[in-house]
Protein backbone atom coordinates (compact mmCIF):
# COMPACT_ATOMS: atom_id res chain seq x y z
CA UNK A 1 0.00 0.00 0.00
CA UNK A 2 1.56 3.28 -1.05
CA UNK A 3 0.80 6.89 -0.42
CA UNK A 4 0.76 8.67 -3.74
CA UNK A 5 0.05 12.24 -4.62
CA UNK A 6 -2.25 12.49 -7.61
CA UNK A 7 -1.41 15.41 -9.87
CA UNK A 8 -4.68 17.20 -9.08
CA UNK A 9 -4.37 16.78 -5.33
CA UNK A 10 -3.30 20.36 -4.70
CA UNK A 11 -6.41 21.87 -6.25
CA UNK A 12 -9.47 22.92 -4.23
CA UNK A 13 -12.83 22.68 -6.01
CA UNK A 14 -14.80 25.92 -5.66
CA UNK A 15 -17.58 25.72 -8.28
CA UNK A 16 -21.13 25.64 -7.01
CA UNK A 17 -22.51 24.77 -10.46
CA UNK A 18 -21.50 22.47 -13.27
CA UNK A 19 -22.73 24.11 -16.45
CA UNK A 20 -20.22 23.37 -19.20
CA UNK A 21 -16.86 21.77 -19.82
CA UNK A 22 -15.91 24.83 -21.84
CA UNK A 23 -15.68 26.81 -18.59
CA UNK A 24 -13.54 24.28 -16.69
CA UNK A 25 -9.75 24.25 -16.65
CA UNK A 26 -7.84 21.07 -17.47
CA UNK A 27 -6.93 20.76 -13.78
CA UNK A 28 -10.56 21.07 -12.71
CA UNK A 29 -11.56 18.36 -15.18
CA UNK A 30 -8.81 16.09 -13.83
CA UNK A 31 -9.97 16.84 -10.31
CA UNK A 32 -13.49 15.61 -11.12
CA UNK A 33 -12.09 12.47 -12.77
CA UNK A 34 -9.83 11.74 -9.79
CA UNK A 35 -12.75 12.27 -7.40
CA UNK A 36 -14.87 9.93 -9.52
CA UNK A 37 -12.21 7.25 -8.99
CA UNK A 38 -13.01 7.27 -5.29
CA UNK A 39 -16.73 7.11 -5.89
CA UNK A 40 -16.31 4.18 -8.23
CA UNK A 41 -14.94 2.24 -5.28
CA UNK A 42 -18.16 2.94 -3.33
CA UNK A 43 -20.15 1.05 -5.97
CA UNK A 44 -18.02 -2.05 -5.44
CA UNK A 45 -18.96 -2.32 -1.74
CA UNK A 46 -21.70 -4.56 -0.47
CA UNK A 47 -23.30 -1.48 1.10
CA UNK A 48 -23.14 0.92 -1.84
CA UNK A 49 -23.86 4.06 0.07
CA UNK A 50 -21.97 6.86 1.83
CA UNK A 51 -23.47 9.55 4.09
CA UNK A 52 -21.83 12.53 2.35
CA UNK A 53 -25.11 14.21 1.24
CA UNK A 54 -27.32 13.06 4.07
CA UNK A 55 -30.14 15.52 4.69
CA UNK A 56 -29.73 17.21 1.33
CA UNK A 57 -32.23 17.31 -1.51
CA UNK A 58 -31.45 16.81 -5.19
CA UNK A 59 -34.15 17.60 -7.75
CA UNK A 60 -34.05 16.06 -11.20
CA UNK A 61 -35.82 18.61 -13.38
CA UNK A 62 -36.04 17.02 -16.80
CA UNK A 63 -37.87 19.01 -19.43
CA UNK A 64 -36.77 16.52 -22.09
CA UNK A 65 -36.98 12.73 -22.17
CA UNK A 66 -34.15 10.71 -20.71
CA UNK A 67 -33.61 7.22 -19.35
CA UNK A 68 -29.92 6.88 -18.69
CA UNK A 69 -29.04 10.31 -17.44
CA UNK A 70 -32.04 10.70 -15.17
CA UNK A 71 -31.67 7.23 -13.66
CA UNK A 72 -27.95 7.76 -13.28
CA UNK A 73 -28.38 11.07 -11.43
CA UNK A 74 -31.11 9.58 -9.21
CA UNK A 75 -28.98 6.61 -8.27
CA UNK A 76 -25.91 8.80 -7.78
CA UNK A 77 -27.85 11.04 -5.39
CA UNK A 78 -29.23 8.08 -3.44
CA UNK A 79 -25.80 6.51 -3.08
CA UNK A 80 -24.70 9.78 -1.48
CA UNK A 81 -27.69 9.48 0.91
CA UNK A 82 -29.44 12.56 -0.54
CA UNK A 83 -33.21 12.70 -0.97
CA UNK A 84 -34.18 12.72 -4.62
CA UNK A 85 -37.20 14.35 -6.19
CA UNK A 86 -38.04 13.63 -9.80
CA UNK A 87 -39.74 16.41 -11.64
CA UNK A 88 -40.84 16.14 -15.24
CA UNK A 89 -42.56 18.47 -17.59
CA UNK A 90 -45.44 16.14 -18.23
CA UNK A 91 -48.06 16.40 -15.53
CA UNK A 92 -46.46 19.52 -14.01
CA UNK A 93 -47.47 23.15 -14.07
CA UNK A 94 -45.08 23.71 -16.94
CA UNK A 95 -47.90 22.45 -19.12
CA UNK A 96 -50.03 25.23 -17.60
CA UNK A 97 -47.55 27.78 -18.94
CA UNK A 98 -45.31 28.38 -15.92
CA UNK A 99 -41.87 29.64 -16.98
CA UNK A 100 -38.66 27.75 -16.34
CA UNK A 101 -37.44 30.35 -13.86
CA UNK A 102 -40.70 30.41 -11.90
CA UNK A 103 -40.80 26.64 -11.77
CA UNK A 104 -37.21 26.47 -10.58
CA UNK A 105 -37.67 29.21 -7.96
CA UNK A 106 -40.68 27.39 -6.59
CA UNK A 107 -38.77 24.14 -6.42
CA UNK A 108 -35.92 25.93 -4.69
CA UNK A 109 -38.27 27.52 -2.17
CA UNK A 110 -38.96 24.03 -0.84
CA UNK A 111 -35.36 23.87 0.39
CA UNK A 112 -33.54 22.16 -2.41
CA UNK A 113 -29.74 21.92 -2.53
CA UNK A 114 -29.11 20.87 -6.13
CA UNK A 115 -31.19 21.19 -9.29
CA UNK A 116 -30.17 18.84 -12.09
CA UNK A 117 -31.69 20.28 -15.22
CA UNK A 118 -32.21 19.01 -18.74
CA UNK A 119 -33.89 21.40 -21.12
CA UNK A 120 -34.22 21.81 -24.88
CA UNK A 121 -32.98 25.41 -24.77
CA UNK A 122 -29.22 25.98 -25.00
CA UNK A 123 -28.04 28.06 -22.04
CA UNK A 124 -31.00 27.16 -19.82
CA UNK A 125 -28.81 25.75 -17.06
CA UNK A 126 -26.69 28.87 -17.00
CA UNK A 127 -29.73 31.17 -16.87
CA UNK A 128 -31.06 29.12 -14.01
CA UNK A 129 -27.75 29.28 -12.13
CA UNK A 130 -27.98 33.06 -12.13
CA UNK A 131 -31.44 33.12 -10.56
CA UNK A 132 -31.30 30.44 -7.86
CA UNK A 133 -29.05 30.09 -4.85
CA UNK A 134 -28.79 26.30 -4.87
CA UNK A 135 -26.38 24.41 -7.11
CA UNK A 136 -27.27 23.79 -10.74
CA UNK A 137 -25.97 20.82 -12.70
CA UNK A 138 -26.49 20.81 -16.45
CA UNK A 139 -27.79 17.45 -17.64
CA UNK A 140 -28.05 18.62 -21.25
CA UNK A 141 -29.14 21.99 -22.62
CA UNK A 142 -30.26 21.76 -26.23
CA UNK A 143 -27.38 21.17 -28.61
CA UNK A 144 -25.04 23.16 -26.35
CA UNK A 145 -23.43 20.90 -23.70
CA UNK A 146 -23.90 17.73 -21.67
CA UNK A 147 -20.97 18.09 -19.28
CA UNK A 148 -21.46 14.93 -17.20
CA UNK A 149 -21.59 12.85 -20.40
CA UNK A 150 -18.37 14.54 -21.51
CA UNK A 151 -16.77 13.78 -18.14
CA UNK A 152 -17.85 10.15 -18.11
CA UNK A 153 -16.51 9.71 -21.63
CA UNK A 154 -13.19 11.22 -20.55
CA UNK A 155 -13.17 9.00 -17.47
CA UNK A 156 -13.85 5.89 -19.54
CA UNK A 157 -11.14 6.74 -22.07
CA UNK A 158 -8.64 7.49 -19.30
CA UNK A 159 -9.49 4.23 -17.56
CA UNK A 160 -8.98 2.26 -20.75
CA UNK A 161 -5.75 3.90 -21.96
CA UNK A 162 -4.34 5.22 -18.67
CA UNK A 163 -4.14 8.69 -20.20
CA UNK A 164 -5.89 11.05 -22.55
CA UNK A 165 -3.05 13.19 -23.80
CA UNK A 166 -1.86 12.23 -27.25
CA UNK A 167 -4.83 10.01 -28.12
CA UNK A 168 -6.65 10.47 -31.39
CA UNK A 169 -10.42 10.42 -30.95
CA UNK A 170 -12.97 10.34 -33.77
CA UNK A 171 -16.46 11.58 -32.96
CA UNK A 172 -18.73 10.40 -35.73
CA UNK A 173 -22.18 11.32 -36.99
CA UNK A 174 -24.58 14.07 -36.12
CA UNK A 175 -22.18 16.60 -34.64
CA UNK A 176 -24.11 19.78 -35.30
CA UNK A 177 -27.10 18.70 -33.20
CA UNK A 178 -25.02 17.06 -30.50
CA UNK A 179 -24.36 18.45 -27.04
CA UNK A 180 -22.36 15.29 -26.33
CA UNK A 181 -20.00 16.15 -29.19
CA UNK A 182 -19.45 19.68 -27.87
CA UNK A 183 -18.75 18.60 -24.31
CA UNK A 184 -16.44 15.86 -25.55
CA UNK A 185 -14.65 18.27 -27.83
CA UNK A 186 -13.98 20.76 -25.01
CA UNK A 187 -12.89 18.11 -22.55
CA UNK A 188 -10.71 16.11 -24.90
CA UNK A 189 -8.86 19.09 -26.34
CA UNK A 190 -8.25 20.57 -22.88
CA UNK A 191 -6.69 17.29 -21.79
CA UNK A 192 -4.49 17.10 -24.87
CA UNK A 193 -6.25 14.63 -27.16
CA UNK A 194 -6.65 15.19 -30.86
CA UNK A 195 -10.31 15.33 -31.88
CA UNK A 196 -11.51 14.44 -35.36
CA UNK A 197 -15.15 15.18 -36.14
CA UNK A 198 -16.51 12.92 -38.86
CA UNK A 199 -19.76 13.17 -40.83
CA UNK A 200 -21.42 14.69 -43.88
CA UNK A 201 -20.93 18.45 -44.35
CA UNK A 202 -24.56 19.08 -43.42
CA UNK A 203 -24.01 17.52 -39.99
CA UNK A 204 -20.36 18.51 -39.46
CA UNK A 205 -19.82 22.10 -40.61
CA UNK A 206 -16.25 23.35 -41.10
CA UNK A 207 -16.92 25.97 -38.41
CA UNK A 208 -16.04 23.35 -35.78
CA UNK A 209 -12.39 23.72 -36.77
CA UNK A 210 -12.41 27.04 -34.89
CA UNK A 211 -12.99 25.04 -31.68
CA UNK A 212 -9.78 23.10 -32.20
CA UNK A 213 -11.07 19.99 -33.94
CA UNK A 214 -10.20 18.49 -37.27
CA UNK A 215 -13.24 18.15 -39.55
CA UNK A 216 -13.35 15.19 -41.91
CA UNK A 217 -16.12 14.16 -44.29
CA UNK A 218 -14.60 10.84 -45.28
CA UNK A 219 -14.71 8.33 -42.40
CA UNK A 220 -12.54 5.81 -44.26
CA UNK A 221 -9.67 8.28 -44.55
CA UNK A 222 -9.17 8.32 -40.75
CA UNK A 223 -10.55 4.97 -39.61
CA UNK A 224 -7.17 3.21 -39.52
CA UNK A 225 -5.38 5.59 -37.18
CA UNK A 226 -7.73 6.58 -34.40
CA UNK A 227 -7.58 5.18 -30.84
CA UNK A 228 -11.20 5.88 -29.97
CA UNK A 229 -14.33 5.93 -32.11
CA UNK A 230 -17.25 7.66 -30.43
CA UNK A 231 -20.37 6.97 -32.51
CA UNK A 232 -23.14 9.47 -31.87
CA UNK A 233 -26.82 8.77 -32.17
CA UNK A 234 -28.60 10.16 -35.18
CA UNK A 235 -31.05 12.48 -33.43
CA UNK A 236 -34.07 12.19 -35.67
CA UNK A 237 -36.01 14.46 -33.32
CA UNK A 238 -33.61 17.34 -33.95
CA UNK A 239 -32.56 16.74 -37.55
CA UNK A 240 -34.02 18.69 -40.41
CA UNK A 241 -34.73 16.52 -43.46
CA UNK A 242 -32.41 18.59 -45.62
CA UNK A 243 -29.44 17.70 -43.39
CA UNK A 244 -29.80 13.98 -43.86
CA UNK A 245 -29.91 11.86 -47.01
CA UNK A 246 -31.26 8.38 -46.26
CA UNK A 247 -30.55 5.96 -43.45
CA UNK A 248 -28.97 3.54 -45.88
CA UNK A 249 -26.67 6.13 -47.31
CA UNK A 250 -25.63 7.33 -43.87
CA UNK A 251 -24.80 3.81 -42.72
CA UNK A 252 -22.84 3.18 -45.88
CA UNK A 253 -20.59 6.21 -45.46
CA UNK A 254 -20.56 6.87 -41.71
CA UNK A 255 -21.83 3.78 -39.92
CA UNK A 256 -19.48 1.60 -37.88
CA UNK A 257 -20.07 -1.54 -39.91
CA UNK A 258 -18.25 -4.85 -39.51
CA UNK A 259 -16.29 -4.15 -42.67
CA UNK A 260 -15.18 -0.71 -41.49
CA UNK A 261 -14.42 -2.00 -37.99
CA UNK A 262 -12.02 -4.50 -39.61
CA UNK A 263 -9.88 -1.61 -40.79
CA UNK A 264 -9.61 0.02 -37.34
CA UNK A 265 -6.55 -0.21 -35.10
CA UNK A 266 -6.50 -3.56 -33.30
CA UNK A 267 -7.03 -2.01 -29.87
CA UNK A 268 -9.54 0.63 -30.99
CA UNK A 269 -12.04 1.59 -28.28
CA UNK A 270 -15.66 1.93 -29.39
CA UNK A 271 -18.01 4.28 -27.54
CA UNK A 272 -21.59 5.45 -27.89
CA UNK A 273 -23.51 7.75 -25.54
CA UNK A 274 -26.76 5.87 -26.12
CA UNK A 275 -29.51 5.30 -26.92
CA UNK A 276 -28.22 3.42 -29.96
CA UNK A 277 -29.85 3.07 -33.32
CA UNK A 278 -28.58 -0.47 -33.83
CA UNK A 279 -27.65 -1.22 -37.40
CA UNK A 280 -27.72 2.47 -38.30
CA UNK A 281 -24.72 4.30 -36.82
CA UNK A 282 -23.29 1.16 -35.22
CA UNK A 283 -23.61 -2.52 -35.98
CA UNK A 284 -24.95 -4.67 -33.18
CA UNK A 285 -22.09 -7.11 -32.86
CA UNK A 286 -19.57 -4.28 -32.49
CA UNK A 287 -21.71 -2.52 -29.89
CA UNK A 288 -21.91 -5.76 -27.90
CA UNK A 289 -18.35 -6.85 -28.69
CA UNK A 290 -15.20 -6.94 -26.56
CA UNK A 291 -13.89 -3.58 -27.75
CA UNK A 292 -17.06 -1.75 -26.89
CA UNK A 293 -17.00 0.51 -23.85
CA UNK A 294 -20.68 1.34 -24.08
CA UNK A 295 -21.86 -0.31 -20.87
CA UNK A 296 -18.69 0.74 -19.06
CA UNK A 297 -19.65 4.31 -19.97
CA UNK A 298 -22.94 3.83 -18.18
CA UNK A 299 -21.26 2.32 -15.10
CA UNK A 300 -18.70 5.13 -14.97
CA UNK A 301 -21.45 7.71 -15.44
CA UNK A 302 -22.71 6.85 -12.00
CA UNK A 303 -19.33 7.47 -10.36
CA UNK A 304 -18.82 10.70 -12.28
CA UNK A 305 -22.26 12.02 -11.28
CA UNK A 306 -21.67 11.11 -7.64
CA UNK A 307 -18.44 13.09 -7.82
CA UNK A 308 -20.17 16.08 -9.43
CA UNK A 309 -23.05 16.17 -6.93
CA UNK A 310 -20.59 15.86 -4.06
CA UNK A 311 -18.27 18.59 -5.35
CA UNK A 312 -20.94 21.20 -6.10
CA UNK A 313 -22.52 20.75 -2.66
CA UNK A 314 -19.13 20.97 -0.94
CA UNK A 315 -18.53 24.22 -2.80
CA UNK A 316 -21.77 25.63 -1.30
CA UNK A 317 -20.40 24.95 2.17
CA UNK A 318 -17.07 26.61 1.51
CA UNK A 319 -18.73 29.63 -0.12
CA UNK A 320 -21.02 30.15 2.89
Amino acid at each position, binding site marked *: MTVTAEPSAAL*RWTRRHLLTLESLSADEIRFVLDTADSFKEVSTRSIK*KVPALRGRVVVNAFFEDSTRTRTSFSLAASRLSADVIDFSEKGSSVSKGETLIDTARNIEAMGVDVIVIRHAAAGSAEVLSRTVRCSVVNAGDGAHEHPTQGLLDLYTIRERFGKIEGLRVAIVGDIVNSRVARSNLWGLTKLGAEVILVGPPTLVPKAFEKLGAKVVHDFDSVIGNVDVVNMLRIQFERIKSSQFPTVREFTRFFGLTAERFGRCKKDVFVMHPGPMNRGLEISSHIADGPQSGILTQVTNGLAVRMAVLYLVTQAQ*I*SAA
Partner: protein
Amino acid sequence: MRNSYDESDVRRIVEQLATRIASAFDVADAFNIVGIRTRGEVIAERLTQHLRSHKYTNIGRGVLDITLYRDDLSEIGPRPLVRPTQLDISIDGRPLLLVDDVLFTGRSVRSALDLLADFGRPSVIRLVVLVDRGGRELPIQPDFVGLTLCDVPRDHRVNVRLRETDGRDEISVEPKA
Protein backbone atom coordinates in the same frame (compact mmCIF):
# COMPACT_ATOMS: atom_id res chain seq x y z
CA MET B 1 5.71 20.26 28.25
CA ARG B 2 8.07 19.20 25.50
CA ASN B 3 6.78 20.46 22.20
CA SER B 4 8.97 18.84 19.63
CA TYR B 5 10.11 15.31 18.90
CA ASP B 6 12.66 14.44 16.24
CA GLU B 7 13.33 11.53 13.94
CA SER B 8 14.89 9.24 16.58
CA ASP B 9 12.03 10.00 19.00
CA VAL B 10 9.47 9.08 16.36
CA ARG B 11 11.31 5.85 15.55
CA ARG B 12 11.40 4.89 19.23
CA ILE B 13 7.70 5.74 19.72
CA VAL B 14 6.67 3.63 16.71
CA GLU B 15 8.84 0.72 17.89
CA GLN B 16 7.34 0.80 21.37
CA LEU B 17 3.87 0.93 19.85
CA ALA B 18 4.67 -2.11 17.72
CA THR B 19 6.04 -3.99 20.73
CA ARG B 20 2.90 -3.33 22.73
CA ILE B 21 0.67 -4.49 19.87
CA ALA B 22 2.84 -7.59 19.47
CA SER B 23 2.33 -8.51 23.11
CA ALA B 24 -1.43 -8.44 22.60
CA PHE B 25 -1.35 -10.99 19.77
CA ASP B 26 0.11 -14.38 19.07
CA VAL B 27 2.40 -14.63 16.02
CA ALA B 28 -0.04 -17.02 14.36
CA ASP B 29 -3.09 -14.81 14.96
CA ALA B 30 -4.88 -13.47 11.93
CA PHE B 31 -5.74 -9.80 12.27
CA ASN B 32 -6.05 -6.68 10.12
CA ILE B 33 -4.30 -3.34 10.31
CA VAL B 34 -6.17 -0.48 8.72
CA GLY B 35 -4.86 3.08 8.53
CA ILE B 36 -6.77 6.32 8.15
CA ARG B 37 -5.49 8.40 5.27
CA THR B 38 -2.99 9.96 5.03
CA ARG B 39 -0.61 9.74 7.97
CA GLY B 40 -2.50 7.04 9.83
CA GLU B 41 -1.85 4.89 6.80
CA VAL B 42 1.89 5.60 6.91
CA ILE B 43 2.02 4.61 10.57
CA ALA B 44 -0.06 1.50 9.88
CA GLU B 45 2.46 0.49 7.23
CA ARG B 46 5.43 1.02 9.57
CA LEU B 47 3.77 -0.97 12.35
CA THR B 48 3.02 -3.78 9.90
CA GLN B 49 6.67 -3.87 8.80
CA HIS B 50 7.77 -4.19 12.43
CA LEU B 51 5.29 -6.94 13.18
CA ARG B 52 6.06 -8.87 10.01
CA SER B 53 9.78 -8.75 10.79
CA HIS B 54 8.87 -10.34 14.13
CA LYS B 55 7.14 -13.26 12.39
CA TYR B 56 3.62 -11.94 12.48
CA THR B 57 2.74 -13.07 8.97
CA ASN B 58 -1.03 -13.25 9.09
CA ILE B 59 -1.72 -9.53 8.88
CA GLY B 60 -4.26 -8.13 6.41
CA ARG B 61 -3.93 -4.50 5.30
CA GLY B 62 -6.34 -1.79 4.28
CA VAL B 63 -6.65 1.97 4.10
CA LEU B 64 -9.65 4.19 4.82
CA ASP B 65 -10.60 7.56 3.37
CA ILE B 66 -13.12 9.00 5.81
CA THR B 67 -13.91 12.23 3.95
CA LEU B 68 -17.40 11.13 2.92
CA TYR B 69 -18.25 10.15 6.50
CA ARG B 70 -17.22 13.32 8.29
CA ASP B 71 -19.72 15.32 10.34
CA ASP B 72 -17.65 18.47 10.36
CA LEU B 73 -17.46 19.24 6.64
CA SER B 74 -19.03 22.63 7.15
CA GLU B 75 -16.27 23.66 9.55
CA ILE B 76 -13.39 22.65 7.36
CA GLY B 77 -14.15 24.43 4.10
CA PRO B 78 -13.13 23.15 0.67
CA ARG B 79 -12.00 19.58 0.93
CA PRO B 80 -8.96 18.14 -0.75
CA LEU B 81 -9.37 15.30 -3.17
CA VAL B 82 -11.42 12.36 -1.93
CA ARG B 83 -9.37 9.22 -2.37
CA PRO B 84 -10.51 5.64 -2.56
CA THR B 85 -10.90 3.43 0.46
CA GLN B 86 -8.98 0.19 -0.13
CA LEU B 87 -10.31 -2.74 1.83
CA ASP B 88 -9.75 -5.75 -0.38
CA ILE B 89 -9.59 -7.98 2.68
CA SER B 90 -12.57 -9.36 4.53
CA ILE B 91 -12.77 -7.62 7.87
CA ASP B 92 -15.44 -9.95 9.26
CA GLY B 93 -14.78 -11.97 12.39
CA ARG B 94 -11.14 -10.92 12.94
CA PRO B 95 -9.56 -8.33 15.18
CA LEU B 96 -8.95 -5.02 13.41
CA LEU B 97 -6.43 -2.40 14.46
CA LEU B 98 -7.53 1.07 13.39
CA VAL B 99 -4.53 3.40 13.11
CA ASP B 100 -4.45 7.20 13.09
CA ASP B 101 -1.73 9.77 13.69
CA VAL B 102 -3.29 12.16 16.21
CA LEU B 103 -6.31 11.53 18.42
CA PHE B 104 -8.02 14.80 19.34
CA THR B 105 -11.82 15.26 19.28
CA GLY B 106 -12.47 11.65 18.26
CA ARG B 107 -14.58 12.70 15.28
CA SER B 108 -12.27 11.14 12.68
CA VAL B 109 -12.40 7.86 14.56
CA ARG B 110 -16.19 8.06 14.76
CA SER B 111 -16.25 8.53 10.95
CA ALA B 112 -13.88 5.60 10.49
CA LEU B 113 -16.08 3.36 12.66
CA ASP B 114 -19.11 4.25 10.53
CA LEU B 115 -17.15 3.47 7.39
CA LEU B 116 -15.97 0.13 8.78
CA ALA B 117 -19.54 -0.79 9.67
CA ASP B 118 -20.40 -0.52 5.95
CA PHE B 119 -17.72 -3.09 5.15
CA GLY B 120 -18.29 -5.73 7.77
CA ARG B 121 -18.10 -6.76 11.37
CA PRO B 122 -14.64 -7.30 12.90
CA SER B 123 -14.56 -9.44 16.05
CA VAL B 124 -13.05 -6.46 17.85
CA ILE B 125 -11.75 -3.04 16.81
CA ARG B 126 -8.78 -1.58 18.68
CA LEU B 127 -7.66 2.01 18.26
CA VAL B 128 -3.96 2.71 17.74
CA VAL B 129 -2.69 6.31 17.71
CA LEU B 130 0.76 7.80 17.49
CA VAL B 131 -0.24 10.79 19.62
CA ASP B 132 -3.12 11.31 22.05
CA ARG B 133 -3.48 15.03 22.66
CA GLY B 134 -6.70 14.89 24.71
CA GLY B 135 -9.67 17.18 23.98
CA ARG B 136 -12.24 14.50 23.15
CA GLU B 137 -15.71 15.54 22.03
CA LEU B 138 -16.98 11.97 21.81
CA PRO B 139 -16.74 8.94 24.12
CA ILE B 140 -13.82 7.39 22.21
CA GLN B 141 -10.59 6.20 23.81
CA PRO B 142 -7.44 4.66 22.33
CA ASP B 143 -6.16 1.16 23.15
CA PHE B 144 -2.55 1.67 22.07
CA VAL B 145 -0.90 5.10 22.39
CA GLY B 146 2.60 6.05 21.29
CA LEU B 147 2.83 9.44 22.98
CA THR B 148 0.44 11.18 25.35
CA LEU B 149 0.51 14.97 25.32
CA CYS B 150 -1.41 16.55 28.18
CA ASP B 151 -2.69 20.08 28.31
CA VAL B 152 -2.22 20.99 24.64
CA PRO B 153 -4.22 24.23 24.32
CA ARG B 154 -7.12 24.01 21.87
CA ASP B 155 -5.66 26.81 19.77
CA HIS B 156 -2.55 24.72 19.15
CA ARG B 157 -2.04 22.05 16.55
CA VAL B 158 -0.15 18.82 16.99
CA ASN B 159 1.64 18.34 13.70
CA VAL B 160 2.84 14.89 12.83
CA ARG B 161 5.20 14.91 9.88
CA LEU B 162 6.39 11.66 8.36
CA ARG B 163 9.14 10.89 5.89
CA GLU B 164 6.78 9.22 3.38
CA THR B 165 4.48 12.25 3.17
CA ASP B 166 6.47 15.21 4.47
CA GLY B 167 10.12 14.34 3.86
CA ARG B 168 11.04 14.03 7.54
CA ASP B 169 9.87 12.49 10.80
CA GLU B 170 8.77 14.98 13.43
CA ILE B 171 6.07 15.66 16.00
CA SER B 172 5.60 19.25 17.01
CA VAL B 173 3.11 21.35 18.94
CA GLU B 174 2.55 24.71 17.28
CA PRO B 175 0.07 27.55 17.58
CA LYS B 176 -2.61 27.38 14.85
CA ALA B 177 -1.63 29.60 11.96
